[in-house]
């Protein structure tokens, strides 16, 4: 068996990914740990944020340099922290100009406490940025209607949340996720709220194409070991989805023969 379910992969934005685990790069103790955990996760896509350079004390260390030897790694800049359409568009354009490609995780936040996205502005941002040649990966609430509108706006994938960002609460509404998966014509990547590998496995079992997690790995006591665990959880969930689970039954059904018992 290969590193995933035997050559199983998904494509988004014109690229093919054999790993269904996408990771973030925030909240680590240092860049060396970010690199080690990313390597252990087997991820082929990683999110980064766009922020001002500290001009009075420009650090010599660069996150991207630490990640430069991670094999096949696609950089997915986000527009995290943006509350307006204009700031989201500016951040996306700056990210592209910094030279890591055309992918952008479109994030327009609508509420400070929950960090829930402003779906209307997110859809509009996808429309504008797609027209400018970006591949948009919008972070949205787990609403099938919003997911469809993002697709219609040209999104390369949709990224419904499982639970609030950084909460680690796990998948809160599996029915909504199933509706989204059922109708989607682009990859469905569950983003935000995954707390443990079993949460990740659940998303993949339901048919999600991939998951994105940051805090669940970076905030673990041992982030590198948790990265390995998350990789295993994602692979287990995907294999279970492909294998097709047994039907649920109301009552017991013996696994051992009913006949041939000693008397």
């Amino acid at each position, binding site marked *: 068996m290969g590193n995933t379910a035997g050559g199983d992969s998904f494509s988004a934005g014109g690229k093919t990914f054999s790993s269904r685990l996408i990771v973030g790069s925030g909240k680590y103790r240092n860049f060396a740990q970010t690199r080690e955990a990313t390597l252990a996760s087997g991820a082929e896509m990683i999110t980064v944020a766009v922020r001002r350079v500290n001009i009075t004390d420009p650090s010599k260390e660069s996150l*991207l340099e630490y990640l430069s030897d991670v094999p096949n790694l696609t950089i997915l800049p986000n527009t995290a922290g943006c509350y307006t359409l204009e700031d989201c568009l500016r951040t996306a354009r700056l990210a592209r100009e910094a030279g890591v490609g055309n992918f952008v995780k479109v994030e327009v936040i609508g509420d400070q406490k929950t960090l829930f996205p402003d779906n209307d502005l997110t859809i509009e941002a996808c429309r504008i940025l797609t027209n400018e040649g970006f591949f948009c990966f919008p972070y949205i609430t787990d609403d099938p209607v919003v997911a469809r509108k993002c697709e219609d706006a040209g999104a390369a994938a949709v990224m419904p949340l499982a639970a609030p960002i950084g909460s680690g609460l796990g998948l809160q509404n599996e029915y909504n996720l199933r509706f989204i998966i059922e109708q989607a014509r682009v990859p469905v990547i569950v983003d*935000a709220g995954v707390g443990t590998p079993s949460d990740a496995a659940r998303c993949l079992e339901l048919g999600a194409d991939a998951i994105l997690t940051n805090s669940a790995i970076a905030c673990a006591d041992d982030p590198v070991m948790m990265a390995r665990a998350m990789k295993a959880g994602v692979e287990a969930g995907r294999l279970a989805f492909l294998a097709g689970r047994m039907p649920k039954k109301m009552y017991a059904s013996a696994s051992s023969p009913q006949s041939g018992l000693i008397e």
Partner: protein
Amino acid sequence: MSSIAVTINGESRNVAAMNIEALLSELNLSGRKLAIELNRELVPRERFSETRLSEGDCIEIVQFVGGG
């Protein structure tokens, strides 16, 4: 040497540089993966040397950091 007063990443600064490329060198930022806005307009990398700075300009210099 004359200098001009500009705002960089929200901080007031007097700089000697007369264009973006010289500014990056003055700030010890040459050769880094970053992107720049001048008065809220994106400045493409290939235009760093020809983009002149004026008194009162507002400049944003950003880079990639850890994020989710």
